């Protein structure tokens, strides 16, 4: 038996809330009783596995959860998917399209769930969006203003996995590398493998840069799923206890 049988259920402590910048008009931060936990990392870094385990653990401990992720909004997800397939959008457009998708989920899912006291697990957040754009040469100040609409999470975990390992994990699942995750739009190299390595290395560097200003926790993603989850659980428990 895990700790499922316990009937003592911890009520999460309230945390200080703030938006990164101007935020969303008309939101009363005081009312957001839930917790926002973000898991970041490249494709193949184990995000979905970790989130699935966290959901099981949290629900077992008596907490209600909600999951969000990129490109899942009712408003623009289909259109965004279409646009990416055709590869017809220029940089600023794609960036704003993703921001719209994010804002729609923030306002229609994340904020209401937090208000209702849920624990929201976000499979990636603004940092991936910012990093992708920064790697492609977009202005950091512009991005910071844009994503000033985002709520500061209670915890952000970045699953750090080397590009070499990411390649191995991707091939263990699919026979091909993803066009966007390989940064093929940037013309780094015609060789998809080289492009993937170069792009993922640049992404990692950018994440480290963002880490210094947004202060998220870097988690060693090269360990077993179980070890990683144990570390996440320990850190999330501290967050729930208001530490």
């Amino acid at each position, binding site marked *: 038996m895990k700790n499922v049988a316990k009937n003592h259920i911890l009520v999460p402590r309230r945390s200080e809330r703030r938006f990164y*910048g*101007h935020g*969303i*008009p*008309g939101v009363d931060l005081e009312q957001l009783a839930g917790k926002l936990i973000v898991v970041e990392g490249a494709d193949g870094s184990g995000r979905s596995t970790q989130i699935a385990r966290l959901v099981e653990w949290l629900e077992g401990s008596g907490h209600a959860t909600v999951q969000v992720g990129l490109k899942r909004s*009712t*408003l*623009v997800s*289909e*259109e965004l998917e*279409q*646009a990416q397939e055709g590869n*017809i*959008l*220029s*940089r*600023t*457009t794609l*960036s*704003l*399209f993703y*921001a*719209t998708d994010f*804002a*729609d989920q923030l*306002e*229609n899912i994340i904020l209401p769930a937090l208000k209702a006291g849920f624990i929201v697990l976000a499979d990636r957040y603004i940092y991936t969006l910012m990093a992708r754009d920064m790697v492609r040469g977009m202005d950091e100040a*512009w991005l910071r*203003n*844009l994503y*000033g*609409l985002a709520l500061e999470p209670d915890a952000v975990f970045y699953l750090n996995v080397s590009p070499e390992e990411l390649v191995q994990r991707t091939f263990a699942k699919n026979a091909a590398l993803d066009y966007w995750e390989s940064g093929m739009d940037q013309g780094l190299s015609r060789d998809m493998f080289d492009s993937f390595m170069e792009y993922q290395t640049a992404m990692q560097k950018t994440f480290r840069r963002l880490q210094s200003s947004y202060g998220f926790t870097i988690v060693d993603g090269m360990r077993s799923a179980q070890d990683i989850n144990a570390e996440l659980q320990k850190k999330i428990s501290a967050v729930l206890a208001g530490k």
Partner: protein
Amino acid sequence: MKTFAELGFPGRLIAVEGLDGSGKSTQIYLLKRWLELQELKVYFSEWNSSELVKAATSKGKKRELLTPTTFSLIHATDFADRYERHLVPLLRAGYIVLCDRYIFTAFARDVVRGCPPEWVRGIYNFAALPDLTFFFKSDLEVSLKRILDGRPQLKYFEAGMDLRLSADPYESFRIFQGRILEQYLAMSTEFNFLVVDANQVVEKQQGVVRELISQRVDLASFHRAERPVPKPRAERHARVKEEEPAP
């Protein structure tokens, strides 16, 4: 922020702004016809018209999914798409680009809907300023009458019904558009708006617009025949023949 001329673009961007029902679309249409009939290189672009983004916007509007933030962002996406794929390349190629609404529409509307002004302006700061901006200044009642003459009802968003200012669409329109007008007027000096009295008849307004443009833009230099890069002789002849079958 600089204008396209200040940035060294060979083309010129002319924007029209004004309330819904101010008659600006009629004016820019007549302006376009006038320029086209002089055989000038003209391109026209309308607010909220990018093919791909439009689908999402109309879905959002129909199902009332939009909040002030997503309303703002989806219009910015639409603008960016047109800006990067059409406006900038055409201005590089020496076109006169006419825009029915430009960034000032967002500056006015989004702020009235409650978005922070600095945030909105920051998002649009990738865009250069128009070389000329006409502001069609109409009274609220005139705008309202013009809209209702054309169709039986006010649209949900043009009446600002999403802001819950009043249950009565007409009253809501007056309050909402009144606030937008305030925003426009506050920007007028900062962005050098050329203010046109839009309560006048169509012809008078068009006369003012044409006069101002003639004074400020060297229209002759935008003639279709003048190509920035000369083509090889044979090809040039062939093209001319193709385009002008009747002498």
